[in-house]
């Protein structure tokens, strides 16, 4: 288990918004490792795991976006049937509540990371 940095960007739910965001990544030569989009009616929050989070934060602020960076947990899973189940079992036993989760598959395809946002960080750190 490790901690990694996640970027959250506010976006209106309108055509072309994603393209506007990916352009900033492209122009700043930042590689996206994983992402997730949560939308609610007229706005949404896009979350990204990237190779250079600090640089991305700076670039988006400069481009006038509302953006925040926080630490999330990355839990290693085996990339095979039952891999996610093992992790889910463990999380359930620890009594942790996940706000939001998505998967990052590592380049070598030896394993996958479950990116999860757990607000009770102390409890999570102890359990994981």
């Amino acid at each position: 288990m490790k901690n990694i940095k996640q970027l959250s960007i506010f976006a209106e739910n309108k055509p072309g918004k994603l393209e506007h965001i990916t352009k900033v990544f492209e122009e700043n030569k930042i590689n996206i490792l994983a992402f997730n989009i949560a939308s609610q009616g007229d706005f949404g929050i896009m979350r990204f795991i990237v190779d250079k989070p600090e640089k991305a934060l700076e670039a988006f602020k400069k481009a006038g976006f509302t953006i925040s960076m926080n630490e999330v947990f990355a839990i290693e899973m085996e990339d095979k049937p039952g891999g996610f189940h093992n992790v889910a079992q463990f999380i359930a036993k620890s009594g942790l509540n996940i706000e939001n989760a998505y998967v990052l598959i590592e380049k070598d395809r030896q394993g996958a990371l479950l990116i999860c946002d757990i607000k009770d960080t102390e409890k999570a750190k102890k359990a994981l």
Partner: protein
Amino acid sequence: MSLIWNKKAECLLPLEKEQLQLERLQHIVKYAYERVPYYKKAFDKSGVKPSDINSLKDIEKLPFTSKAELRDAYPYGMFAAPMEDIVEIHTSSGTTGKPVVMGYTIADIELWSEVMARSLSMAGCTKTDIVQNAYGYGLFTGGLGVHYGARKIGANVIPISAGNTKRQLEIIRDFGSTILTCTPSYTLFLAESAKEDKIDLKSLKLRAGVFGAEMWTEKMREEIEKRLHLSATNIYGLTEIIGPGVAQECEVKQGLHLQEDVFYPEIISPESLSVLSEGKKGELVLTTLTREGTPMIRFRTKDITSLCGGECKCGRTTIKMDRITGRSDDMLKIRGVIVFPSSIEKALLEINGLEPHYKIIITRPHQLDEIEVQVEASESLFSDEIRHMEETKRNIENHIEKSVGLKLKVTLVEPKTLPRSEGKAKRVFDQRELK
């Protein structure tokens, strides 16, 4: 305490003031009647003659003048002085139809300089000040009005006019401007740009600002004073009367001193048109007591305010008007409820962390009016959790509902996407198609 520019005119005793106003009123009514065909026709129609004005109260016998009549007189129909005596012309921004054209004689320009000198002095301006005048120069009265007043005081005027924000900030910093004059919304825009350009607003020499030409609120004043580190005062005026300088706040900042020796104010009910007593809220009606070029008799300003007499802590005895809280023609009727956009603004600005930029959109999708208020999701409102954002949205909706008594929908939009204005801000978009 700042200097009172014209003690004689600004500190008149009640009886002296009334006597002076009556003499001037009698003169201007006769002058207008004899020289402007429109007034002759309107007075005759109402069956009133200049000789019927024997007390200040008799002004109520005279008919009102409204913007429509001034438009009909386009271009020179309201001029009372011969063309060779007119030395300057200004027009009011006509958003619909033809503009209103006003003419100034040498004496009118002197009057304007005088009331603007009084106004700037109230804000603390002296001959040692550097006035950065970011009101637009041209047919709009803002720029030249401040210019004439500052010149009369003997201050140093930087006639930069409106716009070009980057240059405005550089000049404030490099020239050491001490007084800023522009619209309040532009002031906030400047503060925002300064942050982006990494200009430290605390290090600037600005100490006072004279802001007007649009409606603003007490909360906006707090915001401006906090962000720009200056004392922000409110100025009022309109082209039809003279331009800026009709009224201005002193350092007490509780109401604007109206230059009563030259402009006579009344408050009327916009519905019944009857004159309301002091302290009552209604539409401001003004009469120019000494204007030569285009005298105005009982001009309906459409601005909603109230008047309050008595001596001010600053020593002036001129009547004070409240800040403008609405326009009788901007008044919105939403689902039968009367709403002024300014009251929505006031409620919005009471919410911590909210940027003072917003858009109000009114639609009627299914027989019923709906209002949407767009606000920017600034960093301080942002949370990386959808449900917190939803909560923030609901809190804003509830807060507005509580203070204006109207259910509406709040939409969060991306930062810096709502229009910033360099002049008067357009924030209300009525898209109802009324059949």
